[in-house]
């Protein structure tokens, strides 16, 4: 078993899927010879050739649109969009086609497509390179939205995403690409899309986080009797794990990097309010980005939640 960061874990997941299944192909800008702008696909072009690791023109809508055609034909394309902000030009393909191909064809056609893309702040990049707009994609039934929070889960979730017949938006937290290292074994890893996991058990407060905010939430939880849930799949999401935890702890803090208004934290808060409000001992608290356009590097630290902010929210609800 090798210790690796998230970049290496994702690369390993792609390599194993390419080896395992000839229907898997990768496509995107600079994914081939260059190995990807973050080096996620390094070495795969050399190993699998230009027919399976396809360098495309600069053309986000066609990258996803072509991948939809491939998926409907029976391949399992994994498309890379260089940054989440650049999927905006291809949202029509994701919303009007990938999400509804199965429905429109009454189940005759599937869209086993994965769109991988880095998301979130913390890397001091230019505009539209640090978006965290995951909630928007969760509002389109038919799409799955998956967000790993560690190298092990990045590999496991990516493999599961490639194998599911549904289209998946796979959001890779840019800040975590090289921040964390953990043992990541070769071969299949047990994980189920649509299920959350208890990343840290606790009894006094439930903290729900995903992706880039998981590591900060775990740091913030240290020193409290806090249970941290790694949501992993945002749509469809695992309400039961959250509700079971809140019924036990009586307190809920939801953490995300995205803007507060209409963020996915609102969905979780509403779910708890509907189905577990009588278990609550304190108001629900959200720790989120501000309702602002993600700022350029010099100001971005004002916007991205910190472990200290999360710890403050935990302390606040524990005071009730």
């Amino acid at each position: 078993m090798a210790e690796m960061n998230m970049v290496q874990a994702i690369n390993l997941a792609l390599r194993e899927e390419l080896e395992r299944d000839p229907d898997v192909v990768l496509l995107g800008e600079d994914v081939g010879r260059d190995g990807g702008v973050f080096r996620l696909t390094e070495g795969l072009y050399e190993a699998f050739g230009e027919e399976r690791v396809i360098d495309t023109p600069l053309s986000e809508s066609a990258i996803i649109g072509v991948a939809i055609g491939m998926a409907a034909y029976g391949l399992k394309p994994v498309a890379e969009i260089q940054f989440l902000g650049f999927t905006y030009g291809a949202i029509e393909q994701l919303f009007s086609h990938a999400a509804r191909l199965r429905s429109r064809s009454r189940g005759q056609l599937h869209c086993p497509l994965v769109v991988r893309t880095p998301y979130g702040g913390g890397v001091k990049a230019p505009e539209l390179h640090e978006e965290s707009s995951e909630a928007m994609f969760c509002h389109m039934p038919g799409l799955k939205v998956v967000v790993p929070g560690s190298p092990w889960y990045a590999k496991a979730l990516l493999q599961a995403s490639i194998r599911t017949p549904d289209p998946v938006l796979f959001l890779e937290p840019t800040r975590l690409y090289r921040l964390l290292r953990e043992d990541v074994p070769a071969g299949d890893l047990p994980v189920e899309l649509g299920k959350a996991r208890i990343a840290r058990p606790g009894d006094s407060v439930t903290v729900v986080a995903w992706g880039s905010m998981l590591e900060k939430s775990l740091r913030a939880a240290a020193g409290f009797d806090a249970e941290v849930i790694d949501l992993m799949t945002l749509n469809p999401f695992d309400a039961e794990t959250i509700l079971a935890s809140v019924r036990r702890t009586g307190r809920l803090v939801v953490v995300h990097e995205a803007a507060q208004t209409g963020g996915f934290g609102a969905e979780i808060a509403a779910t708890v309010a509907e189905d577990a409000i009588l278990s609550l001992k304190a108001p629900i608290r959200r720790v989120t980005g501000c309702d602002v356009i993600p700022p350029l590097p010099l100001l971005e630290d004002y916007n991205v939640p910190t472990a200290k902010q999360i710890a403050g929210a935990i302390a606040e609800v524990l005071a009730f």
Partner: protein
Amino acid sequence: MSKKIIASFTVSRLEILDEQGRTDAELMPDLTDDDLVRLYELMLLTRQFDQRALHLQREGRLGTYPSVLGQEASQVGSAYALQNSDWLFPAFRELGVFVTLGYPLAEIYQYWNGDERGLLCPEQLNIFPICIAVGTHIPHAVGAAMAARYRGDPIATACYFGDGGTSKGDFHEGLNMAGVFQAPVVFIIQNNQWAISISRNHQTAAETLAQKAIAYGIPGIQVDGNDVLAVYQATREALQRARSGGGPSLIECETYRMADHTTADDAARYRDPEEVQRWQRRDPLLRMRRFLADRGLWDDARQQQLETEIDARLDRAVAREEATPPARARDIFAYTWTEMTPRQKRQLQQLRDLRELDHG
């Protein structure tokens, strides 16, 4: 230092059958008499189906419907060149294509009646669901073509869209990608001169739509879209090129939308009736009928007999459609993801309880 011409391009137009029913023998496609009659029969079936659909819509027995009147040759001619193993990516005004490929007529009525089960494609065909968002299916045809080549399948894909579709970003991205990867795909523009109220000249300043192929490094040709023989021949050549590794092609079928955009539109608000009259003289069925009559393959008696037969067939299709039991409430959930989510199951139960559905 110099300034010189580094490249120059030409645009071709193909015409085989003129308005009087005369043909250019040298350009005639390799078709038997049976094929020639069949092309006409399919155009007539398309026209009568279309007229019936308009009647049904007026009677409140069909939803909003886009008539294909005037475009029969552009659709039947191109689709006649397809094989069942080819993958077809239609827009929403491709009745003649569906009819030619043998799509069940009752299902076509069913779809336009608002029932998604009408999109269930028969097993022997490969027809992508109707695409309402203009031009956005173009990259899908490219992707399926690339996948077919990757698998070594000797097929081509065909993608239909209108003059309006050529203004969309996905037209550019799709054709560009097809050119780069030499995908086995044929793009078939139904240039019917109008995108609702926007005329072809307002859609693009380009003189022809065929010339857009030049920018993507792929062959492009304009054909008389009311000439079923020219449309067939151009499509056949493009499909053969695609299947034999020659890459993608663009075909502009220059035709005319004789009817309103849909039954929800009134074209009299924005277009000159004289223009419509001019195109009436170029009717695709009329010239083919003249051609067949001159060759002794058609007469008034056969015409009358076929019209009666088609009417009876349409009666049966409409009756079958109208006898179809309604879809179940479950159907709106069943195809969202591969598996219904716990929340969807709860929503379905609530729906059943609230609406007291017993067939859900």
